[in-house]
């Protein structure tokens, strides 16, 4: 294609210091962002967040351009901005959440009268748990009542509450899944078993719509870096994990436990495929348990904008993905 080959200007990228955002962490730590964006004369700056709403707020108000984010905030950003604010330009991570429970609980029926954590009312895991319960004919109200008591709380608090016996388990993402297991829990439901092909979206990459239209070259360069990271995950898991770990350390000053990290890594899959159908399904599930923020008028028709990704994938000799 003809047009400019450089796209000077800042590119602001956000992610969480969390293993489910590994491709972002790796691309940053390994210098892929730097190299790829420098080739387009753009300057990447990365920042790390702690909460999805802050990422969305930053993105929608123009303080951030590209972010690794879960499906739930993705839906929120899309719906709240009436389909205008953001686009998914790639997938990142699949899998990595499950229902971990304490010993003695071995079936859905055993959950009755017990208390379980989810990260946040209405978030991906919370919806998954509630939907699954509904398929088991168990009730759970939004305020923690019903057959099974769901108590949304911060993941780290959930781990502690589990250790002190205040809760009986939780439907949590990695690395807390591994933490709960380490604290004596066992997996009752691996969410992968609930999805066709064992794959469902855990993290994808969103971009500000305006940025996508105005800065196609920067987006392209970003995608190259992102795919570099995914390739490294596929080619050398150990090395990739090392990059992720070092970036987490750099941000949090905490050294992730190598064993837990490896365990978590095994429960995740990294892919450029945004697994669009699973996001749609998850939104439908949320709707059925009454936790969808609002129905998009277009059934997410323009959420995914995968042309740039597919162009890069094809250029790298990989298969295109579909929304």
């Amino acid at each position, binding site marked *: 294609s003809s047009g400019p080959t450089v796209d000077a200007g800042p590119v602001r990228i956000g992610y969480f210091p969390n293993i489910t955002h590994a491709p972002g962490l790796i691309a940053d730590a390994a210098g892929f962002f730097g190299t790829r964006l420098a080739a387009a004369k753009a300057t990447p700056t990365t920042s790390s967040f702690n909460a*999805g*709403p802050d990422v*969305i*707020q930053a993105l*929608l*108000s123009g303080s951030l351009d590209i972010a690794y984010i879960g499906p739930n*905030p993705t839906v*929120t*950003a899309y719906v*709240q*901005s*009436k389909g*205008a*604010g953001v686009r998914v330009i790639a997938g990142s991570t699949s899998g990595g959440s499950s229902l971990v429970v304490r010993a003695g609980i071995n079936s859905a029926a055993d959950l009755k009268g017990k*208390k379980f954590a989810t990260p*946040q*009312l*209405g*978030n991906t895991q919370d919806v998954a748990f509630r939907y699954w319960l509904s398929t088991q004919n168990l009730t759970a*109200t*939004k*305020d*923690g*009542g019903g057959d099974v*008591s769901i*108590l*949304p*709380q*911060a993941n780290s*608090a959930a781990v*502690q*509450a589990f250790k*002190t016996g*205040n*809760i009986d388990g939780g439907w949590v993402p990695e690395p807390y899944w591994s933490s709960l297991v380490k604290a004596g829990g066992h997996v009752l439901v691996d969410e992968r078993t609930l999805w066709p092909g064992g794959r469902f979206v855990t993290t994808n990459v969103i971009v500000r719509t305006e940025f996508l239209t105005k800065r196609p070259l920067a987006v392209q360069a970003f995608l190259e870096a992102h795919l570099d990271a995914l390739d490294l995950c596929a080619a050398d898991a150990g090395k990739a994990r090392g990059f992720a770990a070092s970036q987490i350390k750099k941000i949090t000053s905490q050294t992730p436990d190598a064993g837990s990290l490896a365990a978590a890594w095994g429960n995740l899959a990294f892919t450029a495929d945004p697994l669009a159908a699973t996001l749609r399904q998850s939104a439908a599930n949320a709707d059925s348990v009454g936790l969808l*923020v609002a129905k998009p008028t277009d059934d997410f028709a323009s959420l995914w904008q995968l042309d740039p990704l597919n162009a890069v994938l094809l250029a790298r000799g990989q298969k295109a993905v579909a929304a």
Partner: protein
Amino acid sequence: MTSPTTSISERRPLDPIDVPARPRPTRRPGRKVLAPLLAVVVLLAVWQGVVATGWRPDYLLPGPVTVLAELGHLVTLPEFWAAMARTLSRALTGFALAIVIGTAIGLATAGSALLRASIGSLITGLQTMPSVVWFPLAILLLGLGEGAIMLVVVLGAAPSIANGVLLGVDQLPPSYFRLGRVLGAQGWTLYRHIVIPGALPAYVSGLNQGWAFAWRSLMAGELLVVIPGTAALGNRLAFAQEFADAPGLMAYMLVILIIGMIADQIFSAWSRYLRRTRGLTQA
């Protein structure tokens, strides 16, 4: 050379010397209520003005009309009132606890040089800790329940109250202590009849601050600990925030603001009453 001449009774109301250096007790009864309402109205107008410029899309910065409509919808929902009732009752319980504990600590530290030098700083030090760090401890000590929330509320509010007591006692004219001793008041009697009433205005201000921090800590607490079967304002606020539901978030913020303002009005009225009876209101 003409000398300046002034005729006191004939000065116009806005002559500078007539502008009271401090508010005089207002006679118009409605004003105490009208003025804050006016402030809110001005705030809403400015906000609407900003929104009207189209500076930000309305899903980021909804206008007051949207937010008020949302609020109008909220107040029709029984769950809203249930959440409100739950949160208010927690706030009142926690605040009551904080009053007892904060007052006791304040009086103890005010009355003892050693205690003051030793734990005075510790208390303020504890106050600098954000609420969230107390949760692991609260959960550890009291489990995941009302107890943990109460602990965090008390930790948030008690220091302010203790500080109010301390400031009140420190500001008391030494002549009151001397009078108390001459009248034979010692220990608790001295506190009961001289120190506490004397420190009351600062104490009320401490209570006002304490309420603000009780409420603030409670919001944090309700974000982190959910008790089965109970929705509360804090959770709903968090829920609105999680869903980037700007009108909802702002509607809840308005609710919190209004409750805070009502509380402040109560404490202010109390404080005005105290100042009036003590002759502190005339400039």
